[in-house]
């Protein structure tokens, strides 16, 4: 039987309450959201927090709404809600396509966007999605809130800029009128983590790529993105050759490691192919073709 090491349990009633608890208990305290990354790690004793602060009562952090020129997503929004959201599907189909292949429906009832991003697993799907879309993440402490670009949020595997006494409260995804987006993932079996995955968006001005975002996961792409490939594509025509060249550049900047999910070369091949497929579909969607 896998049993976590003993800990003290606290339940926060509000964000302020959670921040006060974090401060009172110090660096050995951890927040628990869906618990679907943290509890498995605690069972394996890879994590041994002394205090767990349950934030599942913070219903005011579970929302997806239009807020000015961004879609604001509360940190406690569950995968299942992201998958079902008509607002997200209308603006950024990449969310729905990624959510459809994140874990399984039962796990998706618990796992949250905040937990996914803060877990910072190098294979996390939503990390690639928010990196592709150029989202901003709102992090709160007792003294105030700061906004961190998604591409500066992760500082390494399982590491983020969120401090010991801070909480990620909101993910802000820019609304990009006319954007097409898509997610492509290869996994070993239904519900598994990615061998490799790519998420992209494209906006067009006529047939010129006005803007593009490329996110990659599980392939060691720095900050889950591919800025060199975006630069190569932005400002020129959206031709198949140029999409393929961007995909090649994206793969060139990855640094996958071989493991039980496959050898590094295979993952690099996937990074290229999946980026290309996601770009193709993003362009087609930006053109208004129903794909």
């Amino acid at each position, binding site marked *: 039987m896998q049993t976590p090491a003993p800990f003290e349990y606290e339940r926060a009633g509000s964000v302020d309450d959670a921040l006060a608890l974090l401060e009172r208990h110090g660096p050995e305290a951890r927040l628990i959201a869906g618990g679907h990354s943290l509890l498995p790690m605690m069972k394996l004793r890879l994590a041994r927090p002394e205090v767990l602060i349950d934030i599942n009562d913070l219903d005011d952090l579970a929302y997806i709404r239009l807020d000015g020129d961004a879609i604001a997503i509360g940190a406690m929004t569950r995968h299942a809600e992201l998958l079902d959201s008509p607002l997200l599907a209308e603006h950024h189909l990449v969310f729905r396509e990624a959510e459809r292949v994140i874990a399984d429906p039962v*796990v998706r*009832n618990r796992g949250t966007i905040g937990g996914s991003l803060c877990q910072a697993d190098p294979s996390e799907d939503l990390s690639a999605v928010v990196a592709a879309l150029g989202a901003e993440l709102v992090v709160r402490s007792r003294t105030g809130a700061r906004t961190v670009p998604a591409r500066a949020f992760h500082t390494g595997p399982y590491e983020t800029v969120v401090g010991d006494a801070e909480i990620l409260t909101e993910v802000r995804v820019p609304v990009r009128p006319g954007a097409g987006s898509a997610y492509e993932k290869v996994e070993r079996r239904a519900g598994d983590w990615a061998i490799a995955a790519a998420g992209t968006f494209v906006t067009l001005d006529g047939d010129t790529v006005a803007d593009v975002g490329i996110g990659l996961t599980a392939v060691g792409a720095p900050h889950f993105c591919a800025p060199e490939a975006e630069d190569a594509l932005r400002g020129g025509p959206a031709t198949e050759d140029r999409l393929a060249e961007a995909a090649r550049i994206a793969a060139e900047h990855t640094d996958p490691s071989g493991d039980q999910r496959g050898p590094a070369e295979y993952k690099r091949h996937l990074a290229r192919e999946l980026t290309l497929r996601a770009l193709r579909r993003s362009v087609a969607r930006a053109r208004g073709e129903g794909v």
Partner: protein
Amino acid sequence: MQVTMTVNGAEVTRDVEPRLLLVHFVRDHLGLTGTHWGCDTSNCGACVLWMDGEPVKSCTVLAAMAAGRSVRTVEDLARDGELDPVQQGFMQCHGLQCGFCTPGMLMTARHLLDRDPDPSEATIREAISGQLCRCTGYQNIVAAVRWAAEHPHGAAEVDDEAVTQSAPAAPGEGRSETEVSA
């Protein structure tokens, strides 16, 4: 610590360690052993029960996190001695062999049918995709859920059908009530 929650409609209070998992709480502290405990790693779905109306893997929820919430286990499916249509479907369609995965499958199936009374085969397969059966393969499980979709009132309809289709039915012929509820 003390936890109080509603389990199958009744309030329960117990003294537990904060690290106790919900699956062990319902099995060992409440004696509700219908919920099974398999992989322990959130992968097999044998431990699926409902928390606040949603299926969850109870090996990956603390009992403490369920405090103040409402839990429903497989023991609550049958009503007044009458099996839920999904349970009847599993009997009709041979949806189980050893039965280890069955409680989790039943809870997910009931939830699916409550939201989508007429799911396609693909929808059923997607709904149970986080749950493993190592005996039957999934064909019969999917058929069982379809059976339940087609018989939302369960056996009563089977009897009616048996009567209308093979009337006059000789005793013991067709799908008798004893067979259905055995």
